């Protein structure tokens, strides 16, 4: 439900995988072929002297460039990590003032997601097959979407739970006077394993 850019996640994993595959493959194959291995190791031997001179004080700018590049990459990766998992919102609905049926006549109105949470939790937890309900609002494509997570008791049919939720949603729609998209998640979870079955045998 969050607006995480999933393509970027996969792209990062793919690029790192490709670099490792190519580098590892080149080392493994190159070491096996004498025609490749000899000139490369010769070249590496020749380069050892100049590079160690440059890095031990001859050319200090190289070290500063490396440090700066490392800093830039660290900042990029931190941005990459902290952009994950956004998209929650507290406001479910805002109605601006103006003319027309779906506008308020004076001042604007905003409905907090907490209202939906409390109304839906209240009506859903009455079902004996439901252990707990969690309602969170997300913003998907500039629209508030409610996610209703229902934790069921073991062995309860998801179709029955779906019917209960549909009824609760219809009541909520009537109360709100309009419809906002709702996504229902039916999950089992640890408490469902422990809670025993709903049917009395």
């Amino acid at each position, binding site marked *: 439900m969050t607006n995480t850019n999933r393509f970027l996640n996969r792209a990062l994993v793919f690029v790192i995988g490709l670099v490792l595959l190519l*580098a590892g493959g080149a080392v493994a194959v190159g070491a096996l072929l004498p025609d490749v291995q000899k000139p490369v190791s010769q070249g590496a031997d020749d380069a050892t002297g100049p590079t160690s001179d440059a890095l031990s004080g001859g050319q200090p700018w190289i070290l500063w460039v490396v440090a700066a590049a490392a800093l830039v990459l660290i900042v990029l990766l931190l941005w990459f990590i902290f952009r994950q998992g956004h998209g929650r919102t507290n406001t479910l609905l805002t109605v601006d003032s103006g003319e027309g049926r779906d506008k308020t006549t004076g001042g604007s109105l905003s409905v907090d997601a907490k209202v939906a949470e409390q109304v839906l939790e209240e009506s859903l937890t009455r079902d004996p097959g439901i252990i707990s309900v969690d309602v969170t609002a997300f913003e998907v494509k500039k629209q508030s979407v409610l996610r209703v997570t229902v934790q069921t008791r073991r062995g309860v049919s998801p179709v029955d739970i779906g019917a209960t939720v549909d009824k609760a949603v219809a009541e909520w729609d009537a109360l709100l006077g309009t419809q906002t998209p709702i996504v229902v998640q039916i999950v089992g979870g640890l408490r469902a394993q422990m809670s025993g079955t709903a049917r009395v045998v």
Partner: protein
Amino acid sequence: MTSPAIYRRVVRRETHSSRSGIAIALAVLLIVVFAWFGVESVLAALGQPALLVSPKDAVVAALGAVSGPVGLLTAGGAVVAVIGLVLIVVSLAPGRKGRRGSVSERTASVVDDRVIAQSVAQTGAYAGDIDPDQVKVTVGKRTVDVDVTPTSGRAADVRSIEEAVNDELKSYDYSPSLRSRVRVSEKGTLS
């Protein structure tokens, strides 16, 4: 005001992994490596003693390793290549989360496969008049395997179990849809 496009997007996102776990783990590893590179470079540029290895020693060691023993190089390279291959597969695989979704007129819903398995087990146990612990249900991508262990000395009523399970599956409109396969174990259990 229904919004099929939003529902399709949300159901897709809730039934497939975002791959954020492995991406964040790799990013943290890279940050640690880059931070170390940066710190060692600055220390070397200022003429201070290195934390672990100075950049000069590291580069010289890497250049020296090229002419190292062939077996070691090949093995090391192969291990790195396999890790790379695994990461590529992870980045391209769909990463299903063991859930299935459906979009109705008013709402979209996503159901855990575990909930389906427990519900099917309950249905089967009730139809076959056996304890729910005697029915083991495994939900795959498109199939539901129902393994029934009958009570010793009593024949299991496979027909009615099968019918009840199929009725239950028919009432679902989740995709990917499921087919059932009921098997009765030859060993019985005491109850």
